[in-house]
């Protein structure tokens, strides 16, 4: 399904068009912070006046081989930095990323990460690029850490690329391929197991309820955990771990596991017959469901998808 949400907008920021007129003063102000500017460019930083910043922008930001956005904070509308793609090689479906938060007051707030995420979504999802590369000063540890976290792979380094404060500086070359985005680390991809607790005195009855009544196949529990009691079962490729815990009133918590079944009414009859009181859940679209508690007080829900 296509959703028509704005791809270049996150919760806090949006990427908007560069406007040399609007941003000239701002960029001239940034250019006066030499310590910051040297993080962005291997060229010697020089302070600019607004007229020059406008001319620079006219020259660099509107070329065919570069795409440039301003980073705007939605709340208040402040423009805090720039981001873009350069060395855009259309036939190779590859480009290089550059980004900078120009105002130090906005550093360390996650804006850079958010902006790069938006841009990568756009580069791979909309422009259909195969690769996004970048270069970064090896000594700029915060930037390197951010790019690594986003999945960029270190591909080499240009040795002693420049000399500053009497020391040679390497430049790292990094790249991210389409199939590497989003990085595996960015999202949990499924639930591996859930754990249900009963008192140790109830463990045998718990086996009867979960393995016999619900019919879940037991799976091998690692030796290292065996003497702790409890058992594991499998359901739909995921796992249920039943363990022991004393002195807890399980009937007081709302937290629960929902078991998806077919033939919901048969299951309801089966649970009632086993002595578990059931009650109707608040209806939701697309599902029929009821809830109950297992014989040990844990809340459980049974749910069935229905047509329409």
């Amino acid at each position, binding site marked *: 399904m296509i959703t028509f949400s704005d791809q270049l907008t996150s919760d806090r920021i949006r990427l908007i068009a560069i406007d040399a007129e609007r941003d000239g003063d701002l960029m001239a102000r940034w250019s006066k912070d030499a310590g910051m500017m040297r993080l962005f*460019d*291997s*060229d*010697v930083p020089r302070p600019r006046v607004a007229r020059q910043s406008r001319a620079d922008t006219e020259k660099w930001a509107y070329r065919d081989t570069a795409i440039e956005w301003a980073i705007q904070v939605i709340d208040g509308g402040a423009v805090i930095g720039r981001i873009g793609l350069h060395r855009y*090689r*259309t*036939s*190779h*479906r*590859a480009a290089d990323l550059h980004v900078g938060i120009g105002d130090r007051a906005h550093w360390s707030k996650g804006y850079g990460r958010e902006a790069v995420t938006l841009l990568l979504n756009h580069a791979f999802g909309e422009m259909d690029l*195969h*690769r996004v*590369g970048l270069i970064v000063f090896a000594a700029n540890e915060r930037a390197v850490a951010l790019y690594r976290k986003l999945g960029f*792979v270190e*591909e*080499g*380094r*240009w*040795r*002693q*690329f*420049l*000399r500053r404060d009497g020391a040679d500086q390497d430049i790292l*070359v990094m*790249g991210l*391929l389409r199939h590497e985005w989003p990085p595996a680390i960015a999202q949990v991809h499924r639930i591996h197991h859930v754990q249900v607790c009963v008192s140790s005195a109830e463990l045998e009855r718990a086996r009867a309820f979960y393995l016999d009544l619900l019919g879940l196949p037991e799976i091998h529990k690692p030796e290292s955990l065996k003497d702790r009691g409890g058992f594991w079962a499998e359901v739909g490729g995921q796992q249920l771990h039943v363990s022991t815990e004393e002195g807890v009133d399980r009937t007081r918590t709302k937290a629960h596991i929902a078991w998806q079944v077919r033939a919901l009414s048969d299951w309801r009859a089966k649970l009632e017959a086993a002595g578990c009181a059931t009650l109707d859940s608040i209806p939701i679209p697309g599902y029929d469901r009821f809830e109950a508690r297992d014989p040990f007080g844990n809340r459980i829900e049974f749910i069935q998808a229905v047509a329409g």
Partner: protein
Amino acid sequence: MNDANIYEGERLRLTALDPVNDPEVEAVWSHTPDFLALFNVELQRPTSAHQLKKRYEEREKNHEDDAYEFDLRIRLRADDRLVGVLVIWAEWGAGNAWLRLGIGLPADRRHGYGREALALGLRYIFDEMNLRRVTVGVPGYNEAALAFFAAAGFKVEARQREALFRFGRRWDEVNLGLLRAEWEAAR
């Protein structure tokens, strides 16, 4: 004072681009598919002498890249014939030079012209431009160029994975670098 002509090697001479006469020759090169693939990673197209002339005139008018770009031509000293291109792009702030080198016609390759032109180019970069290092970007499929630069002392520094698409598949772009100290040691 050393009055040696730094633009001249044993058989070759580095010269300026001749915007009037060179386009005729370069237009022929641009129709040689392997020259395009070897010299340039950008998508190339056959280009007419007229188009090249216009491009060069335009560039001359704007003077845009004068301070950074050294777009040189490689000619035979014997008869002044144009055989190749040597482009140096200076990053003055960093002290790095990007270099590209190509010999136009297949018949002119394997005569050592490339090696001689590179030697002239490197001497210009280190002894005249006073830069600190040289970087090249070589398409992964150009094995001859990779071996050529390695033989000249360049070291592989980075492999930009799958940065290029050509001949129906993806290739890495390989960066090789040569530091001043390495060049001096090999001199």
